[in-house]
């Protein structure tokens, strides 16, 4: 009885998922596409929760739906006139793609079936769950992210860093939304502190329960983005040079810890057991700051206070001329 109930829930939710995915990928209107995409992200969060992946549900709700939603909303303004401008694609091409897609799906389904048939169903799970107590944290996902596969996480921070470098190179701060409605500002006023406190909580709790640096950093960024969206001048709190330090602190602390551990224990990122918990928390705290700074900058579209930046750029110019 219970099984059938669960199964009918699964089928219902997958039906909605496929519908949303189809609509998102087939709309020709940008506004509609963005709205559907955010809804798709929220539904994904529900699916992660259903599949017993609470870490992902948290991350998806904050990043997938929240931060991407904000980024897209801001970008949408650049595309307003282009909405209906979709050039003619030949019917032949469309049908070719359709046929190829269908064939690919059948092929993939066949592959997945064989893969599941062949699998023992355990994979790395038992090994990770058994070894987790040795990692310094008791939450297995955090153990994988910051100990077993910490190198992946380091490179992932590098990806975030790279993306922000490109955003910064592509322009200075963009025009933000105007001042919001009074009632919205009032809500953000008391919501932002809650978000910041929640971010700290998520960071701390990651050691033994769902949460961690990425969720915490994104939550912190969400607080700043919300403030910025309602017209609160976020940039007055930050300046160019402190932003640079915030951006690099995550990877910096991570790499230096790794090197110190290499010198002590002979392997990069091999934490000493008694220090592991503290080191992981240290790295996560630094990473939280970097991620928050990166996502906030990605939303703002450039370094705050452009006038100060141009001044310093001029100064660099002069010194370079002097030396060369």
């Amino acid at each position: 009885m219970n099984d059938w109930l669960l199964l009918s829930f699964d089928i219902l939710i997958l039906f909605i998922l496929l519908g949303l995915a189809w609509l998102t990928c087939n709309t020709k209107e940008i506004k509609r596409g963005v709205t559907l995409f955010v809804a798709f992200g929220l539904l994904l969060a529900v699916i992660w929760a259903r599949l017993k992946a609470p870490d992902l549900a948290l991350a998806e709700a904050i990043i997938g739906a929240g931060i991407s939603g904000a980024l897209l909303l801001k970008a949408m303004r650049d595309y307003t006139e282009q909405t209906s401008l979709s050039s003619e694609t030949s019917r032949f091409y469309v049908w070719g793609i359709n046929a190829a897609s269908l064939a690919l799906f059948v092929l993939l389904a066949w592959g997945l079936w064989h893969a599941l048939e062949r699998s023992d169903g355990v994979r790395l799970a038992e090994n990770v769950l058994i070894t987790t107590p040795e990692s310094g944290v008791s939450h297995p996902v955090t153990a994988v992210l910051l100990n077993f596969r910490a190198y992946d996480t380091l490179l992932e921070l590098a990806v975030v860093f790279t993306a922000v470098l490109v955003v910064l190179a592509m322009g200075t701060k963009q025009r933000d939304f105007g001042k919001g409605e009074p009632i919205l500002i009032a809500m953000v006023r008391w919501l932002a502190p809650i978000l910041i406190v929640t971010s700290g909580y998520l960071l701390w709790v990651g050691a033994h329960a769902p949460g961690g640096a990425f969720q915490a950093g994104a939550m912190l960024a969400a607080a700043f983005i919300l403030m910025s969206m309602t017209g609160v001048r976020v940039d007055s709190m930050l300046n160019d040079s402190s932003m640079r330090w915030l951006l690099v602190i995550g990877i910096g602390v991570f790499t230096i810890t790794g090197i110190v551990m290499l010198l002590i224990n002979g392997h990069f990122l091999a934490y000493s057991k008694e220090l592991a918990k503290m080191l992981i928390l240290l790295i996560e705290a630094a990473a939280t700051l970097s991620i928050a700074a990166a996502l906030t900058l990605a939303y703002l579209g450039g370094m705050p206070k452009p006038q100060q930046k141009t001044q310093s750029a001029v100064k660099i110019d002069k010194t370079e001329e002097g030396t060369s």
Partner: protein
Amino acid sequence: MLQELLYGLAGLAVFVIGLRGALLHDNWLLRLLSLNVCGAGVFITFVAIAYRGLTLPADPVPHALVLTGIVVAVSAMAMALALGRRLRSYDD
């Protein structure tokens, strides 16, 4: 096993839908949405195979991988939007 297969197949379908959308759209923003849907399809497949029923704890490795993937995806999106904005600024 049933849930793994069901969600796994749905993930594959979402992947293919996104891929198709990415190949059909001319508009950069819409293509980007399709690419993100496509990525979500891979993530669903990963998480589906990590699910081991209601009693056993799920496999944490794919969860960590997908978390990495989500962060990479949002970084790529931020960068793509900035490039799109730059491109349009030349037209003004």
